C-alpha cells in the first residue's frame, strides 16, 4: 500500500469515528427503547474507527514521519511539528481511551437511566471535540510540510 494512501486513511477513519460519536450523542439524547441497539452498534463502530485511525496513523508516524519532520523543522513553520504534532501525538491517547470506553458505557445504558445517559453524552461529546482538534492539528502538520516544500522550491529557483 502506498504510504500516501496510508496517511489519508488516518484522518478518514478519524472523521468516521467523529461521525459515529455524533450519532451516539444524538441517539442518546433521545435514549428511547428503539435507540438502544443503534447506540450499542454505533459506539462499537466509533471505537473500531478510532483504533483503525490509531494503528494506521501510528504505523505511518513511526515508519515515515521522520522525513516530514526534518522538512518541517527546516521550513518556515517549525511549530507545525514542535507544537501541533507533539501535542496531537500525545493527546491522541486520551481520545483513544475515550473511544475505547464509549461502548463500555453505552452497553450499560438503558432507557430512562439518566446517570449513564449523561456519562455517554459527555464521552461522545469529548470524542467529537478532541477528534476535531486532531483533524485541525493534522491540517497544520500538512501545511507545515507544504510551506517547507514551497520554500525549498522558491529557494531553488532563485538565482
Amino acid at each position, binding site marked *: 500500500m502506498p504510504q500516501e494512501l496510508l496517511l489519508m486513511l488516518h484522518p478518514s477513519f478519524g472523521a468516521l469515528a467523529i461521525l459515529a460519536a455524533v450519532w451516539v450523542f444524538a441517539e442518546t439524547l433521545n435514549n428511547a427503547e428503539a435507540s438502544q441497539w443503534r447506540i450499542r452498534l454505533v459506539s462499537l463502530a466509533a471505537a473500531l474507527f478510532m483504533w483503525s485511525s490509531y494503528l494506521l496513523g501510528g504505523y505511518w508516524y513511526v515508519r515515515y514521519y521522520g522525513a516530514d519532520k526534518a522538512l518541517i523543522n527546516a521550513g518556515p513553520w517549525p511549530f507545525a511539528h514542535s507544537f501541533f504534532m507533539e501535542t496531537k501525538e500525545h493527546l491522541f491517547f*486520551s481520545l*483513544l481511551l475515550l473511544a475505547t470506553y464509549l461502548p463500555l458505557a453505552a452497553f450499560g445504558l438503558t432507557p430512562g437511566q439518566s446517570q*449513564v445517559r449523561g456519562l455517554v453524552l*459527555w464521552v461522545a461529546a469529548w470524542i467529537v471535540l478532541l477528534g476535531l482538534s486532531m483533524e485541525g492539528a493534522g491540517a497544520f502538520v500538512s501545511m507545515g510540510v507544504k510551506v517547507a516544500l514551497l520554500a525549498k522550491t522558491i529557494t531553488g529557483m532563485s538565482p
Partner: protein
Amino acid sequence: MKDPGIEKYTASFALALAISSLLSALLVVIKERNADTLLAWMKAATGHHWVSHGILVLSLFVVLGWALAQTGVGARLSGNALSGIITGSLVLSGLIIAGFFI
C-alpha cells in the same frame, strides 16, 4: 444510600480513563525532561518512545479499570460525578501537554 444505577465496570473504567489520561500527560513531561534516561529506555524498549508510551497508557487503563472494579471505588460515584472527573482530567491533560509544547 442512593443507588446511581451504574455498573461497576462502567464506573471503574471511567475512573481508569481519567487517571490514565492524566498520567499519560505527566509521562509526556517526565520523559521529555529525562531524555537520557526514561526517554532513552522507552525508545530502546520498543524502537520508538511513542509506541512504548501507548503500550504503557493502554495497559494502565486495562489494569486500573479491572482493579478499581474489584475495590468497588467507582460504585459510590454518580454518573454526573464520573462525567465531571473525566472532563476535569481531559482539560488538565490537554493543558499539561499543550502547555509543555507551546
